[in-house]
């Protein structure tokens, strides 16, 4: 069958099988490999894209179902050579390590901030709870999204610090350390 959809603002038409998943359509047919495929059961969310603005798991959408609709992938986040604040937030706050969950996380974050420019930490955690990250432990992802929200609101003051360095520890000297997280 033939399918036509808008992907990152461009209309694309391809001949596909009816059973083809959107994630494989994007990856294998359009070579948009930023969207990843991490499970078989719709749990992991590494495949999240936006379908008419809503974050969806593209492993659980048929490519045919996206016909006539608008799809946005991570490749479409950057506009006119400018990184989206969410992308900058993930870099600034170390919200990624291996990078595999990152595109999906950022697409969800972008959708969240579009609907709620000032989410609480709890709302951020809830929003990304359909997605798994194996590397970061989530705290830096929450910080990244908060950074982007502050950036867009023009209220950002400084990048969230990682823990301040302690002094080296010659014998007998007290170590110094600070915590990170909500208290800091």
């Amino acid at each position, binding site marked *: 069958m033939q399918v036509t959809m808008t992907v990152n603002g461009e209309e694309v038409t391809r001949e596909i099988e009816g059973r083809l998943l959107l994630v494989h359509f994007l990856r294998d047919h359009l070579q948009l490999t930023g969207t990843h495929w991490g499970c078989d059961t719709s749990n992991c969310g590494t495949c999240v894209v936006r379908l008419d603005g809503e974050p969806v798991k593209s492993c659980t959408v048929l490519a045919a179902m996206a016909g006539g609709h608008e799809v946005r992938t991570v490749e479409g*986040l950057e506009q006119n050579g400018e990184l989206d604040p969410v992308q900058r937030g993930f870099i600034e706050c170390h919200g990624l390590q291996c990078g595999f969950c990152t595109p999906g996380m950022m697409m969800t974050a972008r959708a969240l901030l579009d609907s709620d420019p000032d989410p609480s930490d709890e709302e951020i955690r809830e929003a990304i709870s359909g997605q798994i990250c194996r590397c970061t432990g989530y705290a830096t*992802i929450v910080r990244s999204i908060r950074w982007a929200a502050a950036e867009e609101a023009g209220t950002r003051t400084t990048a969230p610090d990682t823990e301040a360095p302690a002094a*080296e*520890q010659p014998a007998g000297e007290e170590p110094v350390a600070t915590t990170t997280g909500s208290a800091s």
Partner: protein
Amino acid sequence: MTTVAPNGNRTAFVDNDRKPNGHGRMLRKEDPRFVRGKGRYVDDLQLPGMLHLAILRSPFAHARITSVDTTLAEAHPKVRLVVTGAMLAEKGLAWMPTLSNDVQAVLATDKVRFQGQEVAFVVAEDRYAARDALELIDVEYEPLDPVIDVRGALAPDAPVIRDDLEGKNDNHVFDWETGDAALSEEVFRRADVVVSEDIVYPRVHPAPMETCGAVADFDAVDGKLTLWSTTQAPHAHRTLYAIVAGLPEHKIRVVSPDIGGGFGNKVPIYPGYVCAIVGSLLTGKPVKWMEDRAENLISTGFARDYLMRGEIAATREGKILAIRTHVLADHGAFNGVAAPVKYPAGFFGVFTGSYDLEAAYCKMTAVYTNKAPGGVAYACSFRITEAVYLVERIVDCLAHELGMDPVELRMKNFIRPEQFPYRTKTGWVYDSGNYAPTMELAKDLAGYDALRAEQAEKRARGEIMGIGVSFFTEAVGAGPRKDMDILGLGMADGCELRVHPTGKAVVRLSVQTQGQGHETTFAQIVAGELGIPPQDIEVVHGDTDQTPFGLGTYGSRSTPVSGAAAALVARKVRDKARLIASGMLEVSVADLEWDEGTFRVAGDPEASVTIQDIAMKAHGAGDLPEGIEGGLEAQICYNPENLTYPHGAYICVVDIDPGTAKVTVRRFVAVDDCGTRINPMIIEGQVHGGLTDGVGMALMEMIAFDEDGNCLSGSLMDYLIPTALEVPDWETGFTVTPSPHHPIGAKGVGESATVGSPPAIVNAVVDALAPFGVRHADMPLTPSRVWEAMQGRPEPPI
């Protein structure tokens, strides 16, 4: 960011975002491509004419294969190739060596030995057609009784799993012991207090978000095989392929592109990689194999699965005298443990922990069962997860018995700073440590005394709150080649550094990042030694044609081994630069002072040359000093003299719902000491990730089987990994105790949090349940299991 004066120490912390030099917080060089969706992972590769491979897997845990009919699959219009175990056997490729000198079936020939085992493969024109064709292969099985419960594996009437091994008539893999049995016996006999407990570390799985996969491309014209694969050890894999497939090693190029997490899952060679190679050899086309999540969970390297009887002997005042343990280790159907050859139980010998003992002894028996192979994975540092879990649980059992505070009991027994280097009763030599300040800092950050007061109040009101402590010593950075090799390959790592004429540099590593940030931190190491900004240093890794030989990234070994190599290779370059500078400035080398990238003439501040000036001179016109070759480069192969022994103090606070028995981790304080810190931001991220593993293992994750050997955890519906809702906002701190034998004093840290956090969480849950008479409960502490414990029925999970 704060800048801390170096206090006369070697290491100055600086904010690299503003002052790009050496150690300190620096944003990652990897991120710009990842946030744009421009990472290059294995499944992103699309080569001209590329075909797709899918693997048919066994539905049975144990069964004889009586026939395989591939007629229908071969007739499928999109299928190019169908291969069975019998076909591989003709080529001598049906079996391959494991990392433990056992053998493992690539495709089953005689019988299947675990559910999910590889039986046949199909190569087709697309991913979907390959899967379709699997349905068209007809395999006849004759089911056999499986061995699932490890406790019965050595029973005289147990079915023999490995009848492929000459003369094998039982399921015994190995016995191993360490420490002094007689001395331990004597100490236990005279101890005031002896506590013992059966402690299970259930089977779990690293489950990286990217599964395992490969693209094999054999070029028949020049006889060269290129294999892009999800490997943490590309060089070791290349050598093993040469041995297994009989291909000349210089005609094999293994490339690790970007890898979507490894966590030990991507150290072994899996049958799928070999199938992809065979598929490409037979079709003459590039062949891609990418497993799905179910295949990853059911067939690739599991972790843990140790049944441990722990015993601890102490005085009534709380001086720990000795620790003993008996372990039954479930290795699955093939012994695929990734560990140095002389260490069949990995580094489990460090089970004496952070304590100064009089005696210790361990006896271990490993057995085969009808399950997937593996064992060493998931940030275990070669079984140190198990070792630390055992000692930290059994110490808490002792605290409970003595009515002592668990922090106080640990403080009383710590190895003292002046005892380092400290030889443990099992023969490990800890390099350095200063444990008490680390523990004190964790206590301060957690507000430990206030927490205990809060707990007392809550208990009086019937609320269930627990506080758990763990203190661990890790052993990472394998390792000295006199003791440590993987299938004969010594565990040293090479490093090459080239400074270009314009002063930019390329450093080539033998290790392979899977998200740990090597492209950033190794540039920082070299920058710290040479004064070239890290932005001007390209880090190359993963391509065996482009990088020096070495053993790869696992066991938190990158910083201890390859990090040392990077520092030393930079110093070699600096030594050469000094000679060139002496010629340029027309002074003797003794008159030169090094100042972060510049050689200055002592007493003449105007006379100086930068490393960039020297690089141009090294490649430029004119004479160099006598005996100096042109160019500015060096290489090294670093053989570590010892492991590094980072440590940490963790405190966990849990609340348990009395109605549902659901455990909530309310707070988690982690203080880590990994010596010199190259990039605090990246270390913090490593710790956060490992703590999340800990919550997963302690409360959620388990690879379970039914009595027929069906794996019950073959998807993320059943294998539960924490999401953002199951973990707290982590609180971290650190102390710095450098490693005396490491060139920059840095120790590994990547696995510390995964090693250290499960006992803290379990200790917290058991502490919470003390009013219910609970002294121990096994992971995973799901609501149902915690509920059972509250009713006085804590059963082991396996």
